[in-house]
């Protein structure tokens, strides 16, 4: 399904806001969205929520024959799936540009940086090695899939435990988790990507773009680093031109962010470990909050309340006293309460000028209560642009009106006015009152 394009006014609004250093969700330029990491029941399953972007990673392993030119090393395989569940723009066909980009970037970030010791995955040299397969599924696309995917992948790899093996001569025994505890993978460092989006030909920069910001951005710079301040990969994409200073600045920001995120991952892993040890239930099912009304929940926004009292009293003093008293409750019919009398009915009278609708013309409605006719009246009145005190009966008849008879009403007729009191501004009410008058 083709994605709905962003309208021009939305685009302009976003760009204008970025120029004023404002983001739609209130973040600062270098702020990440709320990052939440949860784990599934099995080892190696990890869910990452980055704002509304939701990504799931699963690691699995298998014993296979190694590649011919690398007999001592295990095989790492990465795959990112963009399913239509994540966004209507994704289609079933696999090789879309975005999917290729994400896959290649994840491969370069994790494989080329040698974050995992592949030699430790070798069981029997030249015959059997472990093939570690990391599948990342995008569950909801709200921008910045790359960061979420990389966090999910590396956390899942840290979380994963592979079965223990022992070799006796030529025999290889794989122990199930019940027989022997599974072993974690040996991971040297944790590379994490940070995405920077550029706007207006590189003048403005934002970290962690949301989906709308991604649509208006000119280009993207992805830096993968680990917490030891080593850069694992840099990739610029989109048709922008960068300057060297911009790249250096981004790398500095990235190092700060990466250390924060790494701490968060470590904490999440610790929590999960303690939860499992304590024998408590853990997993995806636990991470879904239950017994909650599925309504739109918005986080509290902080509001400035320091000088609220003074401002409020100011406003109250400066305001004029309200013109009407609030009328008391009236019960016209059992079961119905009525407060006030409402404005007069303005149906059946069309104004030519729009401004007049805004003015509270109670005199307008005087013309409505025609006692004689029950047909609809189309009377066009030309209103002068005054505040409505002087109302000449300048009536203009509609030439193409199909009404047979057009009643021209005198606006100042006093005896007509009270007829409309007591009725709500409902056509039915007016008709009723008309009928009553007729009788």
């Amino acid at each position: 399904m083709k994605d709905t394009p962003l309208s021009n006014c939305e685009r302009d609004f976003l760009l204008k806001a970025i120029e004023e250093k404002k983001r739609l969700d209130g973040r600062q330029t270098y702020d990440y969205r709320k990052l939440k990491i949860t784990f599934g029941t099995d080892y190696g399953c990890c869910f990452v929520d980055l704002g509304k972007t939701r990504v799931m990673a699963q690691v699995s392993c298998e014993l296979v024959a190694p590649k011919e030119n690398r007999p001592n090393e295990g095989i790492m395989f990465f795959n990112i799936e963009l399913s239509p569940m994540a966004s209507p723009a994704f289609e079933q066909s696999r090789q879309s540009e975005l999917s290729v980009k994400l896959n290649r970037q994840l491969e370069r970030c994790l494989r080329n940086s040698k974050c995992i010791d592949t030699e430790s995955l070798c069981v029997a040299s030249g015959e059997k090695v472990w093939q570690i397969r990391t599948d990342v599924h995008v569950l909801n696309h709200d921008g910045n899939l790359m960061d979420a995917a990389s966090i999910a992948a590396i956390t899942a790899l840290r979380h994963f435990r592979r079965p223990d093996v022992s070799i006796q001569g030529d025999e290889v025994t794989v122990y199930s988790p019940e027989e022997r505890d599974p072993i974690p993978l040996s991971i040297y460092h944790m590379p994490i990507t940070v995405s920077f989006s550029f706007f207006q030909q590189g003048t403005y920069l934002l970290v962690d773009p949301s989906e709308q910001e991604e649509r208006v951005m000119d280009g993207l710079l992805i830096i993968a680093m680990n917490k030891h301040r080593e850069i694992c990969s840099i990739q610029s994409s989109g048709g922008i031109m960068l300057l060297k200073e911009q790249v250096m600045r981004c790398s500095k920001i990235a190092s700060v962010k990466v250390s924060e995120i790494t701490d968060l991952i470590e904490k999440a892993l610790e929590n999960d470990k303690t939860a499992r040890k304590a024998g408590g239930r853990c997993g995806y099912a636990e991470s879904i909050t239950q017994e909650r009304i599925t309504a739109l929940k918005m986080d509290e926004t902080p509001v400035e309340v320091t000088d609220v009292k003074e401002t409020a009293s100011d406003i109250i003093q400066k305001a004029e006293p309200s013109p009407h008293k609030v009328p008391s409750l009236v019960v016209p019919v059992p079961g119905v309460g009525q407060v006030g009398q409402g404005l007069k009915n303005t149906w059946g009278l069309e104004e030519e000028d729009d401004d007049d609708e805004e003015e509270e013309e109670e005199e307008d409605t005087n013309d409505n209560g025609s006692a004689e006719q029950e047909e609809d009246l189309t009377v066009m009145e030309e209103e002068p642009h005054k505040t409505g005190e002087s109302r000449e009966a300048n009536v203009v008849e509609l030439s193409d009106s199909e009404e047979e008879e057009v009643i021209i009403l005198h606006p100042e007729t006093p005896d007509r006015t009270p007829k409309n009191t007591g009725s709500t501004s409902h056509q039915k009410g007016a008709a009723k009152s008309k009928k009553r008058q007729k009788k």
Partner: protein
Amino acid sequence: MAGMELLSDQGYRLDGRKATELRKVQARMGVFAQADGSAYLEQGNTKALAVVYGPHEMRGSRSRTLHDQAVINCQYSMATFSTAERKRRPHGDRKSTEMSLHLKQTFEAAVMTQLYPRSQIDIYVKILQSDGGNYSVCVNAATLAVIDAGIPMRDYVCACTVGFVDETPLADLCYAEEGGGVSSLALALLPRGGQIALLQMDARLHQDHLERLIEAAMTACKGVGKVLDEVVRQHLQEVSVLTSD
């Protein structure tokens, strides 16, 4: 491979070059008569052929036309005989698609596409012999081809791959140096303004070395730019002499 030093004590590399020396660049423009623009470029042992068609009416899917600029369509492929082992899939695999996307991105930044609304520009690059620095050689060859086709560009686009060994940046890596686990940075630069059209780096590098590496890459790109400039001026002289009447 493990025993060979990428940088000897005297400062010589595997092929005898110094750390900041580029490989020999030879290029020719206008090699094909039927294409709008074409160029052949050799950088050391890496040979690439680039062909440009356009701008012309959008073929294929009409829905992809952009109302205010031209669409650039790139395809990168490697000949099956270009690598040491015969390549099974010359194009269509992930690496080639990624390269094509990078090329497209690089040229979208440099070519003035606003002058050709609703048209399409095709750039096809083929690697005939691969000896390291594939992306850079492609970009350089494609730049010459685009200039040959008379398509307006802001400036040349020069690219170079640099690596970092023993605290020294090495300019213009060859295949042996690339494969040795060296952190390599590929940079596509518009020399006059110093603007980076594409930056790509793999393998680990400490943040403090990043600036030096980018500096070395920019210097190397400017060197390549000078060579390309000479080639273009030479070609201009030849062809304009013939058409003058």
